[in-house]
């Protein structure tokens, strides 16, 4: 598939999936909470366009976009979010605790980083050639386990790519109130090379990701990709202290608009109809699936 169209379609799939998800809460088909990836789609689409299917991925609470860009099935994710037995993990994990093939996620800030570091170590010991990606955010920079892991990953030259998606807010706390000093300097202090981009243009992100992935795959050790981006929706559902002005202003960075300008109207329409069909099918099938029951032996 054409690279430009493919990137657009991946971003659109994430956007429409997350929008559908948020709307289904009001219908009562979804319980619990979710952390929408809207606004950040270019990060996942760009990065997963340059990784290999066998690479290992550890994602966080905001994992749907990563999962869909990784190639995960929207139906299995929708079923998990609806608490169905056919969900990715049978309804046991829900939104932030999913696993499929080499994709893992957990809802603990910071704690996922040493786990991903160990995965990278395992792949290095077994000489599989796989690299490990771990997704963190600006909020994760407050967690000590991150820095313990950076030290170990650098000491042992582990094949791990740390993707720091700075969406400028840790839940409701702006970066100015949560992160002192330099983001890139944190990684540089451990001798970890940093690629940093302040963009929502998926082509820029793709080229930066391509360079970082190549660096990690070369065996030189860890690398970090810092992507400054924008989160369009609330942290989860209702917790958004930002004023309407700010929310309107950041829409100018909508990655779908930025990249969509490179596509023809026909291509955009084609992507829209294909994505709509996939999502409708995913939610329709998931909704018909049974709820899981606790077995006598658990």
């Amino acid at each position: 598939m054409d690279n430009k169209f493919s990137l657009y379609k991946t971003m659109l799939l994430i956007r429409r999936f997350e929008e559908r998800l948020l709307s289904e809460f009001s219908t009562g088909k979804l319980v619990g909470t979710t952390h929408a990836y809207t606004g950040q789609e270019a990060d996942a689409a760009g990065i997963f366009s340059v990784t290999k299917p066998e690479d290992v991925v550890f994602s966080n609470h905001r994992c749907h976009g990563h999962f869909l860009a990784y190639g995960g099935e929207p139906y299995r994710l929708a079923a998990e979010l609806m608490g169905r037995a056919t969900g990715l993990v049978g309804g046991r994990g829900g939104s932030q605790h999913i696993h499929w093939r080499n994709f893992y996620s957990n809802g603990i800030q910071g704690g996922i980083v040493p786990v991903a570091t160990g995965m990278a170590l395992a792949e290095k010991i077994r000489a599989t050639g796989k690299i490990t990606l771990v997704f963190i955010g600006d909020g994760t920079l407050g967690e000590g386990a991150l820095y313990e892991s950076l030290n170990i990953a650098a000491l042992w030259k582990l094949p791990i790519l740390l993707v720091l998606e700075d969406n400028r807010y840790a839940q409701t706390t702006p970066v100015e109130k949560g992160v002192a000093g330099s983001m890139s300097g944190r990684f540089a202090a451990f001798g970890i090379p940093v690629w940093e981009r302040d963009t929502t243009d998926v082509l820029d992100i793709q080229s930066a990701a391509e360079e970082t992935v190549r660096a990690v795959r070369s065996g030189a050790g860890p690398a970090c990709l810092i992507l400054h981006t924008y989160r369009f929706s609330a942290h989860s559902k209702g917790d958004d202290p930002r004023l309407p002005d700010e929310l309107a202003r950041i829409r100018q960075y909508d990655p779908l608009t930025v990249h969509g300008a490179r596509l023809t109207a026909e291509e955009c329409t084609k992507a829209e109809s294909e994505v709509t069909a996939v999502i409708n099918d995913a939610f329709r099938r998931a909704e018909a699936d049974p709820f899981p029951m606790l077995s006598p032996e658990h």
Partner: protein
Amino acid sequence: MNTVLDRLNFALHHAMETDERVTILGEDILDPYGGAFKVTRGLSTKFPMRVLTTPISEAAIVGVANGMALRGLRPVVEIMFGDFITLIADQLVNHASKFRWMYNDQVRVPVVVRAPMGGRRGYGPTHSQSLEKMFLGVPGLKVVAPNSLGDPAELLAAAIADDDPVLFVEHKLLYTRPLLEPGKGDLIEFQVEKTGDAYPAFMLRPADSARLTIACYGYNFEYARAAALDLLMEHEIFVEIVLFSQLSPFDLEPVFSSLARTRKLLTVEEGTLSLGWGAEVAARAVERMDGLRIRRVAALDLPVANAKSLEDAILPSVQDIINAALSLVL
């Protein structure tokens, strides 16, 4: 003569020789130092690529081990002092113990975390504790403790072979203890049986009908045995001892069968008294059978002091066990 330390060291050597997935991580574990308590000595010389000395980063080390386990290896982590397991709580509670179940049984997490626990060496409040009780009852996490009666090598081998995470609690004073042999030494007074589990419980029954049951684990078996012999020699009171290797999840059938005979339970542990292992054993016992009498012997609810006079007063002693036993039967 084989000590507990020898057997644990042998188990690590044997595991590394027979299973290339086994990797050891910990602080200061390389030869010639060989670890703070020498349990890992010789390993880095024989397997230099698979014995990884780490920065002082307990949380990250256990996290790294979790990731290795998820990707097909069998890591064994040494936490230098068991007191430091507070630093790995997140990795044990929110990661290691969760993955298998929350990923719908699609993964296994074969991690062993070894932690030297316990006091009586004058190390003071942050290097003498028995903190294992904080990790009892965590779904998906097994807590196991060796003793001088079972073979610690077999127990550690079982933990390494386990597909689920195991917190392996080694009392520091146990290391230099020789292994006991049934029918010899002070065990001559007991008939010893053990369960067929990977982490077996041992039932010690005296020649005559016992008047109480002592439940214990780890190093406190040494104290329980000394107390039982004193009760026999000085007071002609026969005691059954149930010695556990697995502390959590709780399988207390061996205690229940002993209590069916004695109706009196005494639990012994070195952790603090309140909300401890003994409290859960006692609760389950009274849920199972009526008319029991119960006492718990444990440390006072205080930090473990440095001065020997204070430490001795805070940690449970043989005399504490004897006194509690007498209060149950007299």
